[in-house]
């Protein structure tokens, strides 16, 4: 479990928080509990992620969904651009965005960034959490909105690419294609928390 100070916005799976003392609850400080089974970023942190989004990083988040991870990230970043395709999920995200003024929600298809690029700004951190067959393409398409030297994180769901091939073979293939174009900083298998998922961290370097 990852614990952090902040506003509790998303319904917590463990309602009684074991970490806050009575005094703290009285003062109004609450602790966020990030469940690695629900958030791939939390799962990455549990498996030894060295490059999480830093404070003052502008984050571009693809596949924001109902905003579980977004609600944690938005409390430390100056700006979080959250792209989500499903209107029903976007409704949930907007309820969170009402509370957190740093979230800029975008209802759009991440396959066509040209359609909303005028609504973006240069990001320091790119997080891609899309469970689609072409998730790697989508990630690649958004690298141009990442500043030079910025960090990109790809949460790879191998089951979306091919349900039959073993996950590690797909992962190696993806890693090879990414390696030709950019510098891979680290990669993690999110196994006990997320089934058949990998987290790949790259650095946006135009020299490669």
């Amino acid at each position, binding site marked *: 479990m990852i614990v952090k100070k902040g506003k509790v916005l998303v319904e917590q799976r463990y309602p009684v928080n074991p970490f806050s003392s009575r005094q703290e609850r009285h003062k109004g400080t609450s602790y966020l509990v990030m469940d690695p089974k629900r958030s791939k970023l939390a799962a990455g942190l549990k498996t030894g992620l060295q490059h999480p989004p830093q404070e003052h990083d*502008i984050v571009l988040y693809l596949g924001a969904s109902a905003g579980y991870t977004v609600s944690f990230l938005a409390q430390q970043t*100056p*700006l979080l*651009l959250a792209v989500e395709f499903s*209107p*029903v999920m*976007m*409704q949930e995200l*907007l309820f969170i*965005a009402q509370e957190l*003024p*740093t*979230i*800029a*929600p*975008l*209802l759009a298809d991440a396959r066509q960034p040209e359609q909303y690029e005028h*609504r973006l*700004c240069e990001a320091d951190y790119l997080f891609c959490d899309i469970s689609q067959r072409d998730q790697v393409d989508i990630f690649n398409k958004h690298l141009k909105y990442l500043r030079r030297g910025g960090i990109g994180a790809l949460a790879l769901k191998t089951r979306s690419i091919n*349900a*039959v091939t073993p996950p590690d073979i797909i992962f190696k293939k993806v890693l090879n294609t990414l390696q030709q174009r950019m510098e891979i900083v680290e990669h993690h298998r999110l196994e006990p928390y997320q089934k058949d998922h990998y987290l790949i961290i790259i650095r946006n370097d135009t020299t490669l």
Partner: protein
Amino acid sequence: MKHIVLHEQTTAKVLHKAKAQQYHKKLVKENTQLTIQDLKTHEYVDELLINAIAYLDTLQDSFEQQGTKMREALRYLDPETAHAHRDMDSLVTAVRNKGSALGKSSALGGTIASTSKHYILGMIPPLLQLKEEKNRVKTYLEHNTSRYLPNTTALIGPELAARLVQLSGSRKKLAFLPSSSIQVLGASKAVFRHLREGSKSPKHGILFTHPLVKKTKDKGRVAKLLADKIAIAAKVDYFSGEYIGEQLKKEVEEQL
């Protein structure tokens, strides 16, 4: 001198930060407004189609379950009626027509106290309501599918058309599916078993419920043929082409 330069730098930094903050605020505000606008103009066609067909499923389930319990109770009061109507729909209609005359002319029924009879008769109105609700949802589905999927509906009927949308996810996804995928839509378990373990591929998925497929001996061939035409119909529907439903239907019947 050095001191002044440092000071200038920090002012520039503060200014820059304030500007950035202003810009971020503007970005958030405009994006939120645009997103709300997008949400307002979004037509929930697929979502409601899928919801309606899933709602129809639950209605059907609860109708059958409650009806079974009613049939069980009816056996003690009027076994002849309970026995005569195998189909749940006709049983409910027969019971409604008889009303409180139930059990009066029965030869095999037991002795039932008046409170128990009230209990059994009380099960009927909710069943009738469920039946009415089912019909309402069916007419809604008919209306909506013939509006948004005219060709597919003409080919396979409203319920199956809505079912295909439910299984594929949306009209767009259905339109982009190849006919071989449509043929086995709804048989995902068998498909993945086929891919993983090399067992025989399924011949049909949800298309099995279509009367043409059900009737014939050569189910694989008919399902393939039907899926072929559905793939065409779904594409024409999605890109809102002209009405070719009847023509496709004729083609299917000719090739049978």
